[in-house]
């Protein structure tokens, strides 16, 4: 039984071994979720700043407003995502006659957020490096009063090569690190819910696969 972070990332089966013999603790998992949310908020803040800059000509201070909304959404969204993932795993594992409490399920899912912290870190570094080179057109008042012109301007902005690159890289990073998290969640759910390895793989694999399909769909059709 090795509770180090390296073991969690590389040999989660060893990390979660005999987890049920210990009292439930959501402190460290919550820390992971909060950290992933805060790091992700940096990317969100930078991207939202671009949107705010587009409308700064009409609404001065829009950059700050969109930035704050993005940061708060990213942090709260991480916790919501944590709860949803745990809930989904809990429900699906119940169909496999899984045992164990929801809090234990929440705990192992939270531990699985550690790769998300690394992923958010990579995405944040890439975003920090890329955003200064993105040119943002300021929308004029007349464009804001013309829905068609506004739609055309936003579409043109979203098809900016730099923006598309940021979106695509972020999607790839998300997919890579969600797979890493899934690897951890499989062993965590297996221990937390007393499932076989196969059942745990199904329990985690199906929702993760659907999520990845959703990500690919969003990026390719956006």
């Amino acid at each position, binding site marked *: 039984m090795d509770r180090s972070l390296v073991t969690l990332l590389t040999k989660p089966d060893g990390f979660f071994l005999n987890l049920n013999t210990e009292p439930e603790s959501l402190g*460290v998992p919550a820390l992971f979720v909060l*950290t992933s949310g805060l*790091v992700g908020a940096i990317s969100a803040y930078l991207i939202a700043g671009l949107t705010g800059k587009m409308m700064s000509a009409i609404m001065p201070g829009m950059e700050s407003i969109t930035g704050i909304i993005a940061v708060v959404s990213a942090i709260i969204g991480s916790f919501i995502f944590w709860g949803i993932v745990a809930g989904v795993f809990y429900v699906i594992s119940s169909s496999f006659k899984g045992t164990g409490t929801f809090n234990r399920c929440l705990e192992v899912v939270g531990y699985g957020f550690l790769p998300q912290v690394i992923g958010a870190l990579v995405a944040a570094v890439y975003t920090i*490096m890329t955003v*200064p080179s993105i040119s943002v057109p*300021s*929308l*004029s008042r007349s464009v804001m009063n013309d829905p068609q012109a506004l739609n055309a301007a936003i579409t043109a902005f979203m098809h900016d090569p730099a923006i598309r690159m940021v979106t695509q890289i972020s999607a790839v990073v998300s997919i890579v690190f969600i797979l890493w998290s899934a690897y951890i969640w499989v062993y965590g759910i297996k221990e937390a819910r007393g499932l076989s390895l196969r059942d745990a793989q199904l329990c985690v694999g199906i929702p993760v696969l659907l999520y990845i399909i959703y990500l690919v769909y969003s990026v390719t059709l956006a």
Partner: protein
Amino acid sequence: MFGKSICFGNPSGISKPIALVFLILAGLAALTGAASAGTAAGSLIAAGENVYVSSASYDPAVFFTGDTGTVTYSVTNGNANQSITVNHASFGDSNIRRTSTTYDATASIGPLQTRDYTFSVIADATDGIYYPKFSLSYFGTQSVWHQAKIQVDNTPLVLLVADKPDSFTLGTKDTISVQIANPRKNDVKNVILKVSGNGLEPMPGTTFIGKLASGDHTTVNFTVTPGSESVMNLELDYNNGDNLHTVTTTLPVVFSTDKKQAEPVISNIAVTSSGGVYHVTGDVTNAGLLTANAVTVTSLSPAVPEDPYRSYIIGALKQDDFGSFEVTFTADDAESVPLQLSYKDKDGNVITSQQKVSLSGGTTTVKGPAAGPDMVPIAALVVILLGAGGAYYYLSRKKQR
């Protein structure tokens, strides 16, 4: 027996006594005829007093000097049961000179009938009022004389530029308003306005106005798109009777700046180079007083526009409004490239201007990877990681205890 004596086939067979009687009868007949002829002549002289000129008309009503036209006199026989025989009619004097022949053929005018006598004339006189004579002779010694007023007036139509733009601009369509007035005492017809000039595109170039009554006026609007500075010729043709007259005026077309026109100005230019493709961003602000429609920015040679922004359409910019643009292009070994800014005015005229953008320093700034990332997010990232690390250490130690 008597009948047999009159024999046109054998006159020598007429006896002398019969011939004598014939002569006597013939002499009596001659005397009787002369007497009756004298009675008829007396009644016709009385009839001549009822012959009069019932109307006189002129075409044109008022002549220019040198104009040709026609004069028509209507002569009425006012007798209820007596015809008259006219043998001569004439008209004219040295001022209003007759150019057609006189009426010399004998013709009768029946009781209460009217006959027209028309003469071609030419006005040789200068401005003024004249009274040329019309004369009609009948029965050899009887005549009718008539004098009517004919006016010669050389006042032409008035052609005025009523409205024109404050300034002309190359390639800009402007509307010009022209007033045409007729100060003459008679109507004129076939009034046509023609507009021309080198390098000018008038629309319409010719306007048919038609008849213009005395003292009346009309306004004609047309547009002109100047391709170069020039002189606009306005020619007004009209007919006074059948005589063509022309009035001309000119309007200088000199380019100058429209004080109200839209004036998009490019500023805040930034140049980024990535993989051989230049990205030029900037703002366009309308510093004019009118709206600039369909504002478009594109790059010109030696630049070769590239996707995604071969040209950038900002749209309409009202007074003091601004919009950002971005254009992408390649430009091998070029020190600078011209950016073309075009917009449309309210009439749809496309107005273009160019501004050079240096691709190597100068007033432009270079953004992109070389500009470096913002340090605030990096600092936030470090703080978050340090805080998370510290919190993890604290929680781990607490759990171990």
